[in-house]
Every structure is written in structure tokens, then in C-alpha cells.
């Protein structure tokens, strides 16, 4: 049975003023997050993956596989996992990229579990994202950056990966057409699809695990928007279950890393005997994963990284637009 | 050794968008030939110092280009490059050419046109004169690399930024009086301290401007100049070159000192003089801290005290040795390939007595130019003497 041996998380230290960003683009309404966690000009999903991965690997057995998940790799047509493995000093690890949608971190965790169930060295799953949009119509998708990492193995862990369940439907809520630079969003479709598919996945997990949703000590969910967390409440998840793992209202949406940070926050607060529910959502697919904590987790205090250093609008603009400059 | 300085020429040092690199070369070269009373056909070899024409001006082969436009074809011509020490290297090769006996009359010319590109582009091209691929890849630039040396110097000798600011005050005093200088304003210690930070602790008035300029000398065998007693009898009497580390990370204060102290000592021995005999000095100071370091290396002050002369007057026009009466690179700017040759031209003017009155050291007989380059990679020392009536 697959276990979580170690974990790590990394949030960039800078916080951009979402209210001012919206105002600059002439968008009405209250900002849905206090600030956006913004990587500095010299950071990107690879460097954030390195930070989270290094933290998860500190003092641990070297993994034989590195699985990278990102919707925004710094380069296309290349394997993020291969470069990440080299940067982590694991040139001989098997590099695998799993990706494509915001819930893919849980796909990667399931894959890592399958690869290591029979024994052998553990597998490192790292998820890192920073979706940047230059078109003002998507400024309300709360684009922020961050990373999380999980070392998964057949034994030696503090938590077991229990049953999982999925529910999916064909829907266009967040997508990118071919090689277009800009993601496309339909927020109302997102809210509806999130609510219905997560509800269905939760119900399916209840059936598979014979454990009611209310019995989980925490729900660690993908959170593209605060409204999606409220949809979970209507699906039977209590506010207490979301309390310690909700961050989108503080620092924005971390894309595929969202569920990773939520799970790290949940593990930090868990004790032996707790069950956590990791809930990933993306592209019309909801994945519900039971995580049984069997020993006190090696906590990393991910919550301490939520607070950051304020940057002004011009710095945010320079750091997000600047990295898109043409090679000179 | 004695190499005769037959003629000198230079252009103003300033932004000159209306002139091309070759325009500046021709202006300085013709000026030197006219001053020497020679025709292009008399120049048997041409040494052209230029560092960055490929980057700044999108052209290469500066030596060959200059040979054509100066009219010295079919004589020998070549481009010389050794980072910021380039002009001094051109001078060294010109001296070696004369001393070898292979040539009677040669021209040494330095040129650089740095303002054809925006400052940030120019800075990146200048960085290529250091290890831009590896060390400067780390975010260092020339100003920040030298800033590290300034901080080390201040810490080692317990100095303040005000102590170092006097150097800029002195250089600007004379730069304001030099019609060929890029910057021509005086400043106080307070104004130096208030000037914009460039790379902590270096401030704007402690770094040189990027400028466009050319300067040239016509050199000849001793006998040729002796045979023209009506000409000023100024000779190059020593030329000594050295290298140091290519990496700022390896450059200690001891290395910075040795880079100039070793060739200076050899030069003094070569000319049979000591540092006490020097009347005027041109000391490379693209960044202000390099002047105190050079003063110490040339033997004008103990280590850690080279900064004092600017504060107490001993390196001003009437002091024990007058340093950078031209305004130094701080005011002239640092046209990479021309700096070394302009230093030579400025010392020759001092020894001839033809500098503007308020920057002319009275009775200057012996001068020295100290040029350096790269993070700490090249050092060059030349001695010059006015030798009237000797055989």
C-alpha cells in the first residue's frame, strides 16, 4: 500500500495587490483574494518545484522516480521532470511528466503509489504552477504561484493512500486552445462543474470507503476560487473541515499546485488516526483521495509561508510581463 | 630606453552621435601626424587600440579600417586589445616596435565609440571585457565588481565613504578645467555623497561616464627626435606590462596592489629613477577607488593611505605628485581602447608645458601613466621624461 513518507511546500514571498490589479484593468467588484502570491522575476515553476522538492527530500531516501506536474512549465516540448531531477541531484531517476489539468497532482500521487507499491525506492511527486495571464479578462482567476512535493513509497511513511474515487463530465470551464498563450475561462461553468463533479466524487468515495465525508478531519481541496469552496459546503463538507486548508482568499489560486498546498496544510495539522480527504478538480474531473494518517506527520508549517512581503502594482507588472519578453 | 614622442593628437571626450568611429580615428590620427610634422607615408606601422567595436559599433578589424582611412596603407597595421589596458598596450607595442630597430616611426592610436547603443546594452558589452560567461553571469557588472574592492578597502583600513569622496572632488576640480573632458563640473564631498547610488558603496560621481573619443601619438627612434631640437624633447623612458587574475572572485587587495606595483618597480629601475622623482601622474580611475590603489602601488603613499592626498592637497597641482590633472577617467570618461593612449597624450602635454594654465603642473619633467583593466587582469606602466640637451 502506498504511503506518504515526506512532504514539502513552497510559496514565493511576494504578495501583489489584487485590488489594485483589478482596478488597473477596470474590473468591478470586490477582489476575491487579499493578495496574489507572486514569484519573483528569477523564479518560475521549475525553481519553485526545486524548493518544494528539496524540502521534501531533506534527510530522506533518494527517490528512483521524479514525477512533475505543472500547467505552466517554463518550457514546452521538454520534460520538466528531467530538468528538475538533475537540479535535485537525481540524474538517474526516472523522470515522468504528468499534467494537463489542475487536479493532476492526485493523478501523479496515484501513479507514484502504483509504481512503488511493490517496494523499491520511493517516488517524488512535485507540483508547481504559475499561470500568468496578460489579458485583463482573466484577472479574476486569481493567478498565483506555488509548489508542493510529496515523497511516496511502499513503506516507511506516516500516512497511507486509501481508496479514491473519480467523477467526470465533458465541460469547457478552464481550457487553452492548442498552443495559444492565454487560458480561457468561464467562471459560471467552472462553479457549476466543480460543484456537481466534486459532489459526485465525494459520494462515490463514501461508497468505496464506507466512511462518510463528515468523518474526515480535514478536506484538502483544489481551490480555483473561494466560491468553489462554498460549493463544497453545500455538498456536505463542513466549514471546520475546510478551515485549516483554505488559502485562496489569502494568496490566490495556485493552479495545479492548489490541491498540493491544501494537502500540505492538512497534513501539518493532522494527528495519528486522522483521515484527510484530498479533493482535486480540473477540466471536469473531480478526484477524491482518502489519506489515512498513521503517525505524527513531519510537519513543515506550510501556513507560515502564507504571509508575505507586499509588492506594488508596478513590480507585479514588471515581474509578470517581464518574463514574457522576447529573447534578445 | 628612449622612444621619442614626435607628435600627439586627441579628440574631445564626449557623446558624439554625429561622428562615426572612423571619423574619430581620423581626427586624432591626423592631429598627431600634423603635430609631428609627418605625412601618412612616414608611418611605418600603426597600432590601433580598440576593445568593443564589434559590440558597440557592429564593425570589426579596427586596425585595418584605420590604416585605410588614415592613409598609411601599405604600411603594417593591427588592432590591439587588452580590455581597459588596450591603449597602454598599443603604446607598449609601439615602443617595442621602435626599440626592436625594425621601425623608425610608428603611430599608436586608441579609439572607442561607446554611445551608439543604449546604456544597458553598452554595459552588457563592457561586461564582456570581464568574464561575462561565467563570473558576470552571476549579476556582477564592472561597477559592482569594483564596488566589492571598495568595500574591502574601506573595511581593511577603517575608512568611511566620505574619506573616498575626496578623490572625486579633486578629479572634478581639474575636469572642469579640461576642455577635452566629458564631465566639466566641480563638486563637493557632500554632492559626491548625495549622488545616486550605482553599486553600493560606489555613487554616480565615483564612476566614469561612457564616452566617445580617440587619441594618438607618433613615436620615433630617439635619434630622429634629437635631430629636431626645436621640438619638445619628450621621451618614453620605460614601458612595463603585467597580468593579474581574470576573475574578481580571485582578486584580493594584495593582488590589486601587485598588479601595478610590480611593473612600476621594474619601470623605475628601467629608467633609473624612483617614485620620488615623479612630478605628474595619470592613474587609471574609471572608478574612484582605483586612484588611491594606484597611488599606493606606484609608491606615492603607504597602503591604506593613498586616499589622503586628495583630501590634504598632496596629489593636487602643487602637491608632492600631481595625480590626474586631466580630471582622470572620472571626468574624461573611459573610452575603453583610447584611455591608455589619452593618458600618454595628457602626460606629454604636461611635460611639454602645453596643458591649459590652471591644470598645468609647473616645471613638470618626469611623468608616469598607470593603466589597468579587466577585473584585475592587466596592468601597464609607462614613464615619460623631458630630456633637454642630452646626447
Amino acid at each position, binding site marked *: 500500500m502506498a504511503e506518504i513518507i515526506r512532504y514539502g511546500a513552497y510559496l514565493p514571498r511576494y504578495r501583489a495587490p489584487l485590488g489594485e490589479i483589478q482596478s488597473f484593468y477596470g474590473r468591478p467588484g470586490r477582489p476575491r483574494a487579499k493578495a496574489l502570491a507572486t514569484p519573483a522575476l528569477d523564479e518560475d515553476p521549475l525553481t519553485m518545484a526545486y524548493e518544494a522538492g528539496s524540502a521534501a527530500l531533506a534527510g530522506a531516501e533518494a527517490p528512483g522516480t521524479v514525477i512533475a506536474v505543472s500547467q505552466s512549465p517554463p518550457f514546452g516540448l521538454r520534460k520538466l521532470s528531467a530538468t528538475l531531477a538533475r537540479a535535485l541531484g537525481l540524474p538517474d531517476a526516472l523522470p515522468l511528466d504528468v499534467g494537463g489539468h489542475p487536479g493532476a497532482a492526485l493523478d501523479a500521487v496515484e501513479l507514484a503509489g502504483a509504481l512503488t507499491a511493490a517496494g523499491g525506492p520511493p517516488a517524488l511527486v512535485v507540483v508547481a504552477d504559475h499561470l500568468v495571464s496578460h489579458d485583463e479578462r482573466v484577472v479574476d482567476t486569481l493567478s498565483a504561484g506555488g509548489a508542493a512535493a510529496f515523497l511516496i513509497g511502499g513503506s516507511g511513511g506516516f500516512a497511507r493512500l486509501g481508496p479514491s474515487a473519480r467523477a467526470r463530465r465533458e465541460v469547457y470551464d478552464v481550457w487553452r486552445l492548442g498552443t495559444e498563450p492565454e487560458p480561457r475561462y468561464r467562471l459560471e461553468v467552472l462553479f457549476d462543474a466543480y460543484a456537481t463533479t466534486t459532489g459526485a466524487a465525494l459520494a462515490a468515495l463514501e461508497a468505496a470507503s464506507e466512511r462518510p465525508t463528515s468523518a474526515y478531519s480535514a478536506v484538502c481541496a483544489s481551490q480555483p476560487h473561494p466560491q468553489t469552496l462554498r460549493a463544497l459546503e453545500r455538498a456536505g463538507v463542513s466549514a471546520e473541515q475546510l478551515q485549516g486548508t483554505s488559502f485562496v482568499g489569502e494568496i490566490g489560486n495556485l493552479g495545479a499546485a492548489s490541491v498540493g498546498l491544501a494537502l500540505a496544510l492538512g497534513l501539518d495539522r493532522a494527528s495519528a488516526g486522522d483521515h484527510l480527504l484530498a479533493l482535486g478538480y480540473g477540466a471536469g474531473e473531480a478526484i477524491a483521495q482518502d489519506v489515512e494518517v498513521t503517525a505524527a506527520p513531519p510537519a513543515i508549517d506550510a501556513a507560515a509561508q502564507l504571509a508575505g512581503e507586499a509588492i506594488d502594482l508596478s513590480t507585479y507588472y514588471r515581474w509578470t510581463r517581464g518574463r514574457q519578453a522576447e529573447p534578445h | 630606453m628612449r622612444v621619442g614622442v614626435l607628435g600627439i593628437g586627441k579628440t574631445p571626450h564626449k557623446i558624439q552621435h554625429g561622428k562615426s568611429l572612423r571619423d574619430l580615428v581620423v581626427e586624432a590620427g591626423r592631429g598627431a601626424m600634423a603635430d609631428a610634422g609627418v605625412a601618412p607615408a612616414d608611418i611605418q606601422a600603426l597600432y590601433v587600440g580598440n576593445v568593443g567595436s564589434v559590440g558597440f559599433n557592429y564593425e570589426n578589424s579596427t586596425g585595418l579600417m584605420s590604416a585605410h582611412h588614415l592613409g598609411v596603407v601599405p604600411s603594417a597595421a593591427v588592432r590591439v586589445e587588452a580590455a581597459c589596458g588596450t591603449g597602454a598596450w598599443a603604446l607598449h607595442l609601439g615602443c617595442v616596435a621602435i626599440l626592436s630597430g625594425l621601425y623608425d616611426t610608428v603611430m599608436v592610436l586608441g579609439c572607442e565609440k561607446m554611445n551608439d547603443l543604449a546604456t544597458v546594452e553598452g554595459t552588457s558589452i563592457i561586461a564582456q571585457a570581464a568574464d561575462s560567461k561565467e563570473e558576470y553571469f552571476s549579476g556582477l557588472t564592472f561597477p559592482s565588481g569594483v564596488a566589492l574592492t571598495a568595500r574591502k578597502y574601506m573595511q581593511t583600513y577603517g575608512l568611511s565613504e566620505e574619506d573616498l569622496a575626496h578623490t572625486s572632488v579633486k578629479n572634478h576640480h581639474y575636469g572642469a578645467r579640461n576642455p577635452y573632458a566629458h564631465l566639466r563640473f566641480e563638486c563637493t564631498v557632500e554632492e559626491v555623497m548625495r549622488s545616486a547610488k550605482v*553599486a553600493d558603496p560606489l555613487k554616480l560621481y565615483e564612476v566614469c561616464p561612457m564616452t566617445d573619443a580617440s587619441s594618438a601619438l607618433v613615436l620615433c627612434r630617439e635619434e630622429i627626435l634629437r635631430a629636431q631640437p626645436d621640438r619638445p624633447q619628450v621621451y618614453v623612458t620605460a614601458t612595463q606590462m603585467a597580468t593579474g587574475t581574470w576573475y574578481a572572485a580571485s582578486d584580493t587587495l594584495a593582488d590589486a596592489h601587485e598588479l601595478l606595483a610590480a611593473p612600476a618597480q621594474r619601470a623605475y629601475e628601467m629608467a633609473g629613477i624612483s617614485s620620488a622623482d615623479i612630478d605628474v601622474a595619470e592613474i587609471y580611475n574609471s572608478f574612484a577607488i582605483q586612484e588611491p590603489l594606484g597611488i599606493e602601488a606606484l609608491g606615492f603613499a603607504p597602503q591604506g593611505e593613498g586616499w589622503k592626498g586628495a583630501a590634504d592637497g598632496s596629489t593636487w597641482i602643487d602637491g608632492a605628485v600631481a595625480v590626474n590633472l586631466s580630471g582622470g577617467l572620472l571626468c574624461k570618461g573611459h573610452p575603453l581602447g583610447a584611455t591608455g593612449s589619452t593618458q600618454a597624450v595628457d602626460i606629454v602635454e604636461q611635460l611639454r608645458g602645453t596643458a591649459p594654465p590652471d591644470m598645468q603642473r609647473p616645471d613638470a619633467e618626469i611623468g608616469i601613466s598607470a593603466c589597468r583593466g579587466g577585473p584585475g587582469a592587466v596592468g601597464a606602466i609607462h614613464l615619460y621624461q623631458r630630456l633637454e640637451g642630452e646626447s
Partner: protein
Amino acid sequence: MTVSAIEFSRLGPPKLRLYAMRCGSCGVLQPWWEHHHCYACGGSDLTEQELAGGGELSNYTVVYYPPRDFLGQEPYVVGHITMDEGVLMPAPVVGVAPDDVRVGTRVKATLRRMKLGHEGDIYYSQKFVVDDEDPAAAQAQPV
């Protein structure tokens, strides 16, 4: 102005990890660019040695006028770091206000983007962050 992709392959991959060059003749550890020649003894037998990543800021400056590749990051701290293994490394120190570093600050290496190359290749390298942990308690880098 484009540069051949060969330059990237010569310089790019080694920078993903922090290393220095150990001289086989005199044992002195040289910075990572000394592939050919030991500056201490003149020997030519130099091998790569990975560094643990910890060191002390032995000198620094604050750059206000950056080169092209660092535009947008100014003012930034760039310094000389004396690594625990004894070799001096030049590198930026990030994630800290310039007023908050001083000579003697302990730092540790991490991966950062250095620049977008001339042909769109991304150069990664090592920058340093302030190390708040007690050195004795700091955990080793993954092997």
C-alpha cells in the same frame, strides 16, 4: 544578436547543481570556472566537487544599474560568498532587502532563473538566500 545553442549546452547543464573544482595536485578548491588551470599551483588536474550549499557572505554590493539580463530585479544584492568548503563564489543574494544583509550573514544556495538566453533557452543557476537556521541543525542537501 544570436548565440549558438552550443554555448548553452556548454554552460547550461552544469549550473543546475552547485560545484567547485578540486585541484588534484595541491588540493585547493577553485571556483567552478577553473576547468583548465589551478590558479594556486598551476596544475591541470581539476575535478568537479559538489558543494553542500552553505556559506557566509564575505563581501557584497547592491546593484542599482543592472546588466540587461537582470533588468527588473534591481536593486539587488550580489556578493562574494565564502562557501563552507572554503572556496569563494560570486552570486546574487535574493529574497531579502539590501539593508538586511551584512558581511558575515549566513546564506545557502538555491536554484533560480539567471536569464533568458539569446535564442530563448533558459539559463538556470545558483543564487543564495539568507539561511536563518542554525548551521548545526541544517539538513543536508539531497544526495
